[in-house]
């Protein structure tokens, strides 16, 4: 399968350290003045489709598309129901795309079967904000920051407690830096939009971290 992956430099870099290493795709730095030959590819992956308009909907291509669909569900990304059979959503955020398994949402059995036969290390999950693992992780990080604010604790203390008491593979700070605090905030904002602030309050310090550690393209 001829595969193309489009995204910003840092996202392409993170992707190629994970799933990309086994797909060996062509890469296109987006946006770039020189457009690729869209029709040449069987599969096109857009690493930032849930963050800006995807070129998928403005070019002529017969490819099967894989859209990043964490901050916005796949069903809200598509301009027309006819797309359901020729695309899937996936968690392509840093760290998550560096796992062995790929987390994928699909709006039709046909699309899921097509993608899964090409990438057997994929697991189908519901088409909801954050999919599964980014949703759970974002809420853990947010909870740690909510507690920090309530109890005047340092992030260092919480990191120690989480690492030594829960045996988590990374501390809160390490998860946030690895995924990108901006992404964590944007997942929380999307959850809040769907379910309300009473169910998903956002820690004020999360906003501070997202602004003070701008992850730019990441």
């Amino acid at each position, binding site marked *: 399968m001829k595969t193309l992956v489009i995204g910003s430099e840092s996202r392409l870099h993170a992707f190629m350290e994970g799933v990309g290493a086994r797909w060996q795709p062509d890469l296109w730095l987006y946006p770039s003045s020189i457009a690729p030959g869209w029709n040449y590819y069987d599969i096109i992956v857009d690493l930032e489709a849930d963050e800006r308009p995807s070129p998928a909907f403005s070019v002529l291509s017969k490819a099967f598309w894989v859209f990043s669909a964490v901050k916005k569900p796949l069903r809200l990304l598509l301009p027309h129901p006819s797309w359901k059979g020729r695309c899937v959503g996936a968690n392509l955020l840093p760290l998550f795309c560096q796992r062995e398994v790929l987390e994928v949402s699909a709006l039709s059995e046909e699309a899921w079967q097509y993608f899964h036969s090409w990438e057997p290390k994929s697991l189908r999950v519901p088409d909801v904000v954050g999919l*599964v*693992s980014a949703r759970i992780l974002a809420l*853990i990080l947010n909870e740690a920051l909510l*507690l920090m604010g309530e109890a005047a604790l340092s992030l260092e203390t919480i990191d120690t*407690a*989480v690492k*030594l008491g829960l045996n988590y593979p990374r501390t809160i700070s390490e998860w946030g830096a690895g995924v990108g605090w901006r992404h964590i905030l944007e997942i929380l904002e999307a959850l809040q939009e769907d379910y309300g602030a009473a169910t998903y309050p956002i820690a004020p310090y999360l906003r501070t971290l997202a602004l003070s550690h701008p992850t730019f393209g990441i």
Partner: protein
Amino acid sequence: MKVLILGAGTMGRGIAELFAAHAIPVELYDPNEAARLRVQELSEKYPNILQIHSTLPRTIDHTVVIEAVPEDFDLKRQVFGGIEAYLSPEVIVATNTSALSVHGLSQGLSYKGRFIGWHFFNPPTRLPLVEVIPTQHTASQVVEQSLAILRSVGKVPVIAPDLPGFIVNRVARPYYVEALRLVERGDVSPEVVDQLMEGLGFRMGPFRLMDLIGIDVNHAVTQRVWEGLFYPGRFRPSWLQAQKVAAGHLGRKVGQGFYSYEK
């Protein structure tokens, strides 16, 4: 230094072994004969260091008393009231609660200034963290002594607020609650959630971990944190988890939880 531990269950036993392994004299008290028998091997492993008793000493002049009875507010209160008459004035009294209010447990006691939370993690001999939870009444000297004692047995103590779930059980809640919420709606299976979280480096996915901890225990902690924080929607306990508890599917300990286990 010498230590008195009240309760010879899983945590009491582990804490007793921790101190005994550092050659610190330990007395382990439990009125339940079956519980005492289960820890008998410890007194053989640490002769002259670890003693098991069925009755409380008439004078409690130990450096610290560590309460490790089941996580039941009334039972713990009864234990603290019961030792009051025998306590020497300098003894520190620590409760190994995982989510109950330390302040609430200390109310009405004459030794509130020496009362503090020491939350160990299971198994206490291996996991280094201890949450140290002072109340508004705890003397600063008791906090300092607590930190020193715990460090002397190789622990990493962190001072935690007396809020529901302290630090660890609070921060960990979304790992269970949100995973349950996704599965409750029938959108995804426990197996898939576990595979995805383990793929991120977590040693056990949330459902495998709940089975190990005990679904009833995990549910009770969520319930307490939810109530203690005045019912925030994000911690609303799961009906799926409540049904598992009602059905007796409590996890590995009974052979059936979110997964089935051969007994």
